[in-house]
């Protein structure tokens, strides 16, 4: 009996915690489908009696976010492809012990330091360098900075996955006369496929969510969705409808990805520190 009561209390507490965690997300979604008149009321309307998709139509027709959505997709996908390509090649050669240990440790520490520094430190240099190269407001410049941002993550994550592979497989393939490329492409990559998928999802989310570089390096052509959201805020007022509708559009794909990959995602979020 005492046990049962305890259980109920535990579940009740978990329920309250979940409510706090989820409420802002619920508020985002309900606000995006409320009529203008139902948004700014006190007490706030938590269960809208009437709903509309007008804000979603507006953001596409009036604000024309179709183009920004496309930019976001192009940048995130290209970033993912390039950083996973460069990163997993590098991680593979670091994971194996052919190169001197001192060099490998040094390389990893350098990558870690790059991971540690706050992005704002490189933002202004990027802006100056990129405007001088004439690449301001282009997708190319965004992709370059994003790959630089993602690479340390990919290298550390993939390193962990490659190191976990049983060594016997690698040894056996050496005996069978596979070249390094064959061992990487034919054996190691397929065996680390879940790891590769997680890393890719993680990179995609990093690129998709990034705001600072995007806001500084773009103005019209290459503007991505996070920058659009910030632009609905002005000194006078916040356009709640379009802002929340764009927010939902931005969050939903990421959430679907994240929940699909959640088993390994914790590992990505903790930079490979927790195997979870």
């Amino acid at each position, binding site marked *: 009996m005492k046990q049962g009561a305890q259980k109920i209390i535990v579940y009740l507490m978990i329920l309250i915690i979940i409510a706090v965690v989820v409420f802002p997300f619920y508020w985002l979604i309900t606000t995006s489908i409320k009529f203008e008149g139902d948004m700014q009321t006190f007490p706030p309307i938590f269960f809208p009696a009437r709903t509309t998709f007008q804000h979603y139509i507006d953001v596409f027709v009036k604000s024309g976010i179709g183009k920004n959505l496309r930019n976001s997709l192009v940048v995130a996908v290209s970033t993912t492809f390039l950083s996973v390509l460069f990163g997993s090649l590098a991680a593979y050669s670091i994971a194996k012990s052919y190169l001197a240990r001192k060099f490998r440790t040094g390389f990893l520490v350098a990558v870690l330091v*790059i991971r540690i520094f706050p992005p704002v430190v490189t933002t202004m240099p990027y802006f100056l360098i990129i405007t001088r190269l004439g690449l301001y407001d282009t997708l190319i410049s965004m992709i370059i900075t994003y790959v630089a941002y993602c690479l340390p993550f990919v290298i550390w994550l993939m390193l962990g996955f490659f190191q976990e592979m049983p060594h016997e497989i690698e040894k056996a393939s050496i005996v069978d006369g596979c070249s390094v490329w064959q061992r990487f492409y034919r054996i190691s990559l397929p065996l680390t496929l879940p790891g590769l998928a997680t890393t890719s999802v993680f990179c995609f989310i990093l690129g998709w969510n990034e705001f600072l570089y995007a806001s500084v390096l773009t103005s019209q052509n290459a503007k991505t969705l996070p920058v659009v959201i910030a632009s609905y805020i002005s000194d006078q007022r916040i356009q709640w409808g379009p802002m929340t509708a764009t927010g939902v559009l931005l969050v939903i794909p990421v959430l679907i990805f994240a929940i699909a990959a959640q088993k390994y995602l914790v590992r990505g979020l903790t930079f490979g520190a927790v195997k979870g």
Partner: protein
Amino acid sequence: MTALKNLINKSGEMIAGRGGPLGVNYSRDRAVLWLFLAPAIIFMLFANVYPLGYALVMSFFQYNRLIPGAVPVFNGFQNYIALIRDPQIIDSFVRTILFVAATVVVEFLIGTAIALLITTTIKGMQIIRGFFLIPLMMPFVVAGTLWRTMYNALYGPINYFISWFGVPRLEWLGNPDLALPAVMITEVWQQTPIVIFILAAGIQALPVDIYQSAMVDGAGRLQILRKITLPLLKPVFFVALLLRIMDAFRIFDTIYVMTYGGPGKSTEVLSLFIYKEGLKYFKIGRASALSVMFLAVVLIATIGFLRNIQKQQL
């Protein structure tokens, strides 16, 4: 961190040295592996090291890009000296450290409690985890704007909820005393799940037999928690702490959309300060010097932990 450990422990075990235990000549393989490394190294030299070097060099120059025809003029350590003497910068440093310390402490207090709570109930862990992913996955810009609407003094749900407890309406983001705590609450909401995830994974990896023998010996729950669980979790705590400290320093997007450093300068943390100096006023030299100092602070704050983790795992 674990990767570094693996590297050090297993490197000897793997096909070691020149020639190798399998009697194959590896010099050609080694050349191919250098080729594997080349794209990443070249890319990072261009896109990571070069901008950092650029900031470092510029920090010794006086250069205001808003003045037409201005060119960088070398002025030694003048930028740094001016910064150290500027009370605004000191305030911003203090504010940043306060922000990082307070959010991380609160995240760990709440995170530890929740991690202990959810690991006691095995059922539904997957679902609970799914819920906790929501804040974590939300782009900072969305979280910031969303919380800004929730903090709205007239129509925001937060003022409605606190009215249940008899608290009058608060100007959350308009009041210089409340703005920083308000931003901190948003950060805690968004980032505590990562602490929970790390700690929960750590708790679940603890050996069960210790608990059984402790219970046989008649240890109480609190005793088990204090004498067994928490001490065993120490390495996991370190990893989580390192990650959280290093990421808390990065806060930018959330504050940018919530308050833009205001009201007054009450939420102007270093990253925002650097942003304004460099990209709004275009005082390139000054912003660069500030960036270098910021980087130094972040490295100092995290390097101790890094060392500690390495030591524990070697």
